[in-house]
């Protein structure tokens, strides 16, 4: 796994995301999802650049069915940006790196 991206799941979601001190980006993905593979390297670059202020995580929706259902995810990749346990922003599908930077720096 890339530097600085933590693999999370249904059991660790509360502690790793909702209770986290830093804002958290969660990348919901699955191995069968081509676009998720495409956006992966962009998330890795962002983790390199913003890893000090933002916690980067990824959640495999195949292995963790509870969390995606809770957040109404019907399409991946979906990126959700959390702060203090609340959803600040949500992006569905592949978008430009600049849009993701905007999501992270606008908070």
């Amino acid at each position, binding site marked *: 796994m890339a530097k600085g991206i933590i693999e999370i799941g249904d059991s660790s979601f509360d502690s790793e995301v909702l209770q986290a001190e830093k804002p958290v980006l969660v990348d919901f993905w699955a191995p069968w999802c*081509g676009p998720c593979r495409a956006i992966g390297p962009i998330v890795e670059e962002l983790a390199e650049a913003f890893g000090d202020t933002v916690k980067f995580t990824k959640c495999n929706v195949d292995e963790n069915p509870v969390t995606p259902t809770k957040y109404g995810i019907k399409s991946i990749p979906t990126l959700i940006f959390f702060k203090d346990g609340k959803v600040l922003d949500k992006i569905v599908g592949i978008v430009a790196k600049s849009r993701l930077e905007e999501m992270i720096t606008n908070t």
Partner: protein
Amino acid sequence: MKNVDYDLVIIGGGPAGLAAGLYAARARLKVILVEKVVVGGQIVISDWIENYPGFPEGLSGPDLVQKFTEQAKRFGLNIENNAAVSVDLSDPVKRIVFNDRTVTTHTIIIATGASPKKLDAPGEEMFYGKGVSSCATCDAPFFKDRIVAAVGGGDTAVKESLFLTRFVKKVYLIHRRDRLRAEMILQEQALANEKIEIIWDSVLTGIQGFTNVENITVQNVKTKEEKTLSVDGCFIWVGEMPNTKFLADGIKLDEKGFIVANLNMETSVPGVFVAGDVRNTPLRQVATAVGDGAVAAFSAGHYIENLKK
């Protein structure tokens, strides 16, 4: 010859742009390819490509992208994640405004592709990502054993509906005519597939639900009869629109907004070439896009040679 940053700037990193980049790099042009989202373009969301020659078993879109990219990079193609915000083509030396800087170049290849068209049906926008989709490989497993609708009748609609049947219980394929437009082999597969029910002569008139898609309404265009279908998802594959927003006036477009070019991929502006889905072409496939890209790079090289004379 005037001093410029590049001989050639390729805008767009799908199959057309990557093929142009491969040829331009081998021609030793001073070239850069800029891609604003991710390299690969629309084939990134293609589950399986089985009509691109050279791969008898077929291969996934992302795998093909990786091969294209590797091959272009082997010859030194510089690929940058950046977006062309606007272009100024009023001078023989063209200027392109990127996110972070402005560059000058002798030639441009526009290979920005096309995006899935929207129907503008009520509810379509509201339920996007909540059951409305145009990417089966992103979303199909979320509809395991559910009933979904698909709108369209071309290659993409039929191919992706067939992919959906691997997961879903049933696909209503809604098509506005009384026959499909897709490749014959795809039509045969769709007609033989028990999970696909084609709703002929019909158009989508609305998508309804509470938080997620629950129902759609379709209308028969001949009888005007309207009916409601209970579905959990609605996939929309009704064609493509060209990605030309950044272009200023001056380049000739066809009535649908696609860029007009001759056999050499020359547009109406000297030194500006076009390749792939953004061109007004009769067929939008990987095989045609790479052909366009090769010709466009060759023509750009020829144009630059003439400047030196």
